[in-house]
């Protein structure tokens, strides 16, 4: 087993574990911390995939900027433990777990197949990790989606402002 595989497995397990913790923790701060750990694990996965720039951005933007915001919000709103959200065990939970398990089983069974080796990634894309290469591609091949995504972000910003505005002023 190569070092690559060992690294991948460790990070993947970490990512899944923190993901589960994120959902199951009732204390919002511990959930947030789980999320930060999850982002770190993801960024490690990117590194194993030769995507250094993405890994760095992942930590900077998500683990850094966004999570700081999230923690701030939690503090400002003074969220307590979500005791009220606790649900008694009911049939729906059981069915949901069963169905999710079925879905995961399906995916696992699918992924046990073997790649054929056709359509290998090109040599150029091996270098995708470098900022220069990403910049190049973003501003040439992917210029249109790059610009289009800005529209998406704008809509999202506008939307959150509208929904969050305290009073109806007009």
């Amino acid at each position: 087993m190569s070092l690559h595989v060992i690294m991948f497995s460790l990070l993947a397990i970490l990512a899944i574990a923190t993901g589960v913790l994120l959902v199951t923790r009732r204390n919002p701060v511990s959930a947030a911390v789980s999320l930060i750990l999850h982002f770190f694990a993801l960024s490690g996965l990117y590194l194993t995939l030769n995507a250094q720039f993405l890994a760095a951005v992942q930590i900077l933007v998500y683990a850094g900027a966004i999570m700081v915001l999230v923690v701030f919000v939690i503090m400002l709103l003074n969220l307590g433990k979500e005791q009220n959200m606790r649900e008694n065990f009911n049939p729906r939970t059981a069915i949901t777990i069963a169905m999710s398990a079925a879905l995961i089983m399906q995916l696992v069974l699918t992924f046990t197949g073997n790649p054929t080796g056709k359509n290998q990634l090109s040599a150029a894309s091996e270098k995708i990790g470098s900022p220069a290469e990403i910049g190049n591609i973003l501003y040439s091949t992917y210029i249109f989606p790059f610009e289009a995504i800005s529209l998406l972000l704008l809509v999202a910003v506008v939307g959150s402002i509208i929904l969050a505005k305290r009073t109806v002023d007009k």
Partner: protein
Amino acid sequence: MVQDLLFTAPFTFLSVMAIIAMVLDALIVNSSRITFIFSAITLLFSGILGISTFGLHGIGFNGMVTGGGFAAYFDILFSIGGLLTILTSRQYLQRENIEHDEFYSLVLFAVAGMMLIAHSNHLLILFIGIEVMSVSFYILSGYMRNNAKSVESSLKYFLLGAFATGFLVYGIALIYGSTGSMDYNQIALNINNNALNFPALLPVGVALIVIGLSFKAAAFPFHQWAPDVYQGAPTIVTAFMSTAGKAAAFAAFIPIVTVLMPSAPVKLQMIFAVMSAATMLIGNISALAQTNIKRMLAFSSVAHAGYIMMGLVSGSQYGYSGIVFYLTAYMFMQIGSFIIVAILERNGEKYLELSDYAGLSKRHPVLAAFMTIFMFSLAGIPPFAGFFGKYFLFTAAIDAGFLWLTLVGVLSSIISVYFYIGLIVKMYFTEPEGQREDNEVGMSGLSLIITIAGVIVLGILPSGILSIASNLFNSTH
């Protein structure tokens, strides 16, 4: 580059104008009137741009987008949908006291997102388009912030929409992993040549993409959000979402199905057939028991997604042109009926019960007559637009060997007649109860006239749109 920009001209124009509209809001006090006119003119021009780029044909921005033909047709359709929405909305928003300027910009953004979907030739563009549209919808449906139902519908839509988006993205990733590309043409090529990097991933990817798009189209079993959201959202937003939004979902479906169908034709056909049948039946049977007109129309909208899906089953250009025709017809008849609902509705969700329509023919003979025509058209009765739509879709399904599906379609159509006619009976054959405020028609009148003209012209002279619709698929595929 000029060519590329030309291909996406309606989209580019619209997004720039949407941003300008927002800036106008910020700079001018009490700008709602200006923004209203500005947005209406913008949509008019984006429609005209759509018409003028219709003759083009090709792929731009490094294979990211297609231009002309199919995409341009949908550009026009979305512009019309947006325009009808905006024309109707001012009065409605003022009455409901929720006229904020961003409303119009958000409609523009939503239309821009739909255009991206129609133009996409790359899964990335498809995804961005769907998200731009959906995020705008999430906000628009929660626009009545003082109304619990509206907020609830927004939140519900957002939660479930995000859930569905997750599967869509996963599907895109799996397709990429399997075929090594996100470009439609390349994917099609690799599938047809069986040059797959990881064949086992492909069917799962295909399934997940179909699931993600079915959610947007509100097809069974991914339809349950639709009645709630459509009922809770402001009426004009519902009109917009349930027509243009559905059209966008199928504008995404058609090229995707064309590309992916060869990977598992029989299975995919069966999926669409079963989904279509179940959607038609459940939508129509549920609509039968509704007493709230918005909810009834919402369920009927679900049912119509089922009819339209029959066109996908065939996987032929005949079916696709049937879809395009039906979407066009559906746009007019569904928006039209919602406009009437919006005109009669009063704050606090008054006058939304079917019983409030008793004797409408006495109070508003013209509105009642228009509503009757829309209902007949929705029920598929000639000579209105809905009839030919159904005819072509039914024929396409039979053509593909799915006679049973057509029979289910017919059965559910018969069920649907029951509630469509029920409304007409209410309007014409019962006496009005109690006094009612006067209803101003105002600018909504203009959109009503456009929709009624659309329904009648498409019914009496369907050839024009029909030959355009069938040519869309002759040249490109």
